[in-house]
Structures are given as structure tokens and as C-alpha cells.
């Protein structure tokens, strides 16, 4: 499906919940505001001519330069990006959704940014969101049991954050 037609359709249906788009990118993407994410996903999955029944992947990208000297030249404002890759098995097309989040909720370090969970739309999102929470530190509101999946339950911090520091020791094991 042509990107522009789909974008127009989404904009008409959801108005300002569609925050932006980049159709010139290698994988064209549509940006959705967090409060509209579940509705948009529900629509994309159920609409008979879209049928995005497969959620391939959820990724969090941490845009942050820990070195203050380089930060000015980094070319981006510090933020966290959630990237949802969707595809349709029957219609054989794919789409990328993005959600922009602050790195910390209310800019208080340690307070995880919140986004609604799409595990009610695709059940595969259950594990993917647990992984994103575990490694990148995003709180998915409405997830049935959001807890760590790859790291141990008592692990501290979120390793894929750019400012993450390895703990000095973990249960008597030297970290660094």
C-alpha cells in the first residue's frame, strides 16, 4: 500500500494522534502519540484491507550522548524512541510505527517513561514489551505482568540505556 494514502487515511481517522511521518526514509514510518497507540494498532490490525496481523518487533532506541562535550554536536535531542515493526501475512506489506518518549518521566532520572501496552492487540507484544522494559526501561501501562525477562529479577538499571553503568558487584560477582 502506498505510504501517502495510508498516512492520509490514518490522519483523517485519528487526527492529531498521528504526530508525524517520514515517508522518504529507508523504511517509511508514522509517528503516533502514546495516548493513541492502542487505537491505531487495533485499527491497523482489524481493517480488512490493512490486516497487520503480525507484530514483528518492538525496539527502543535511546538517543542520548553521555559525553557532554559531544552532546552539542550529536544532532538530536535526548529522547527515547519506540519502534514497532508490523507486517501483514495476507496482504504482504509492512509498516513502521514510532512513539517518541522522554528519557525519564517528568525529567526525574529513575522514573520510567510510560506508554500503553499493545499486548491486548498482539499477544506477542507480551514478551517483547517485557524485553524492552528489562533492557531499555520503558513502563508499559496495562501489561499483565511486566517484569524482567532476560536479566535476573533483582538486576538494577536498564542496560541498553546509553548512560547505564555496570554495577560494581552482583551477589559477590565482580562487575567492573
Amino acid at each position, binding site marked *: 500500500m502506498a505510504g501517502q494514502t495510508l498516512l492520509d487515511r490514518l490522519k483523517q481517522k485519528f487526527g492529531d494522534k498521528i504526530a508525524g511521518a517520514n515517508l522518504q526514509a529507508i523504511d517509511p514510518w508514522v509517528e503516533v502519540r502514546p495516548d493513541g497507540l492502542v487505537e491505531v494498532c487495533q485499527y491497523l490490525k482489524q481493517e480488512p484491507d490493512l490486516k497487520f*496481523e*503480525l507484530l*514483528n*518487533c518492538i*525496539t527502543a*532506541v535511546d538517543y542520548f550522548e553521555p559525553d557532554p562535550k559531544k552532546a552539542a554536536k550529536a*544532532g538530536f535531542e535526548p529522547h527515547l524512541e519506540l519502534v514497532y*515493526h508490523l507486517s501483514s501475512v495476507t496482504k504482504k506489506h509492512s509498516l513502521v510505527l514510532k512513539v517518541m518518549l522522554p528519557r525519564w518521566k517528568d525529567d526525574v532520572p529513575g522514573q520510567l517513561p510510560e506508554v500503553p501496552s499493545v499486548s491486548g492487540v498482539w499477544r*506477542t507484544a507480551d514478551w517483547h514489551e517485557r524485553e524492552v522494559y528489562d533492557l531499555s526501561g520503558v513502563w508499559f501501562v496495562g501489561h499483565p505482568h511486566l517484569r524482567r525477562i532476560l536479566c535476573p529479577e533483582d538486576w538494577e538499571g536498564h542496560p*541498553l540505556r546509553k548512560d547505564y553503568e555496570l554495577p560494581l558487584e552482583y551477589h559477590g560477582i565482580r562487575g567492573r
Partner: protein
Amino acid sequence: MAIDTGDPRIIEFDVRTDELLVNMGPQHPSTHGVLRLVLKTDGEVVSDVEPHIGYLHRCAEKIGENLTPRQWIPYTDRMDYLAGMSMNLGWSLCVEKLLNYEVPEKGRHLRVIIAELQRIASHLVGMGAYGLDLGTFSPFLYAFREREKILDLFEEACGARLTYSYITPGGATADLPRGWLQKCEAFLDQFEPVIQEYHTLLTSNAIFIKRTAGIGILSPEMALDYGCTGPVLRGSGVDYDLRRDGEERYTEMYDGYAFEVICQRHGHYPQDHDYPPVPKEAVLGDCWHRFYVRMLEVVQSVDLVRQGIERYSRARGSWGEPIKLSTKLPKGEAYLETECPRGQMGFYIVSDGSAIPIRARARSSSFCNLSVAPELCRGCLIADVPAIIGSLDIVMGEIDR
């Protein structure tokens, strides 16, 4: 299997039994690596399964943020260590997509040959280990005997037997050595008749059918909902294979190759070869069908390697030199999925314009395939749990990354 309390043969149905939590793994031979399952059981019947993963987590994605794409290739090997070549290929194609780099024709055919040989090797392990799960030892030895020959071929091409780092962004580290194609053809000629042995040992074996047919039935809707891909999805009758339906950058590798996606359409499987019949006990989407799809894909891959050899020997020019170790990446991001032996393996790269990406992500196929296991195991017998987990053919290295 659900227990029917009205069945007169069951005499203890009104006895109150307690639920028991049983720990299986992480050091259990039939969990295929370090997978820990917590089973909630009522007698022999499993009422819930909770997989615990992460025992093999090596922070591969974090390492990827500190290395250039070519330096990360050896780490992709160690994800799905039974299909290292396919992992290399997935990452290489993703990086090439970001760079907008075209691999020469000869390199593309080389990649098809290598990737399909890898698929055979990987499915052989899957098949042999599945036999082990169900209590038969010989298919495992038969499978490893043939896999060994593929590893010999790989060793000759790149020097390694398990973690290859052979396919790299740009092409491959070296061309195939002289005389390799003849050896490969000799292997295929010898291997093709052997497949019949596997069918006799497993596919049409009465005990095997009893253990797998009608067990762990996965409906196509549930498979898609849980993001299952590869043989698990096709075993449920969904006609989807990225080699045909994927992105152009990937499908152009297979341009002109004749192959039919292995899945049951209109009640029957492709009939281009002499395959054993589907037993009447088997239900679409059960363990037997997932196994059968893998067995048929082995034959399909043999055909593809033959076609690849023919095209490769006709192609002229370079096989594709690897890109420079510190090639600057353009600013942007790219996501690409390839059809690996275990399903759709996706790689995602985000770059800010330097040589080192700011994010390297691997979407693991086994990760999603395993997430459906609690759903499949609910209500089955304890002895069926290894049968179901084995039929998903998971590799923990890929799940935990």
C-alpha cells in the same frame, strides 16, 4: 490432552488432588539448552507452563553499539549457533540495506548455496534432537553423520565449523575454493537418498506418530498472534515464506529459483518429490506437521543448492569483497528480516552517521516461537512437554542473545 471426567476408565476423578510446581531445567537435556520451565501439574496433567529465559544472555545488542557492523558479525554467529551462516546473512543484508549496497550476482548465488546448506544442517540437528526428546537415539546419529559433511564443506570454504563469520556486509570473506562445487554436488548426490532413511526412522514411524500427531495443536490465528514464524507458522498451514514474500533486497537473491513454499494448501503438501503420506492421526498445526515441514524443507533446500551451484558457476565477476572495517554508515535506520531455519530473523540498525551504529537490534525468531509454548502445553501430559518444546525447535543462544 484434556481429561474427560465422564470417562469410566478413570476411577479417581473425584479424588481431590493437589497442584504441584515442578521445575524442569535449566539443566535438562530436552529443553535444548538452558531453558527453565516451571510446570504447574495436577498428577500427569500440566495445567500451566512458565518459561524462564535469560540464562544465556550475553548483551549482544549492547556490544553491537560499540562495534562497527563488520566487527559485530562474529557475535551474530553466536546467536543461533546452529545456523551461523543465516545469522551472518541477515545482519549483512540489513547493513547493506542501510548502505544501499548491491552485492554482485556471483555473491548472491554464493549466499544462496551457503544459506541453504546451512538450512539443511540446522534442520538435521532439529530433527535428530527431536528424536532424542522422544526417546530414540539413532536418528540423532544418522543426522549428525550427514551434518558433519556439511560442516566439512563449510570448513573448507571459511575455516570454521560452527561460528563462521563468512558472509559479511559486501559479500563474503572469500570466494568458494577451487573444486568446492564438485564436492558439494557429490555430497548432495549422496545425501538425497539418505533422507528416505529419516522418513523410515521418524516421519512414518508408528511410535513417533503416536507421540507427535494431535499434540500441541497451534491454530494459524494463534501462531500469528504470538508472532510465530518459519516452520512453526507453515506447520499451521499459513503460506508465508520470506524467500518469496519478503523484502525485495532479500527475495532478489532467489530470483529465478524454482521452489514452492512448503505448507499444506487445499489439504495437501507440495508433491514435487516422493514424500511419505500424512498419517490420518495428524491434525494440521500439531507437532508432527511442524516436523514434517522441516523434513520437506530439507529436500527443498537440496534443490535450491543445486540450482545455486548451476547459477554460480555461470556467473562472472567478483563474489563481492567485504566492505571496509570502518566504513562510515549513512545517517538513518534500516530493518530487514530474513527466513532463517527457525523463522524470521530480523535485524535493525540505527546510525547517526559514524562508523559505529547507535543501536543494533536482533529480532529473534525462537524468542517469539517459544512464547507460544505455555499456550500449547496447557492441558497436555508431562511427557508431551518435551515433544512440544522440541517441535518448536528453539535455540537458546538466539532467544537470550
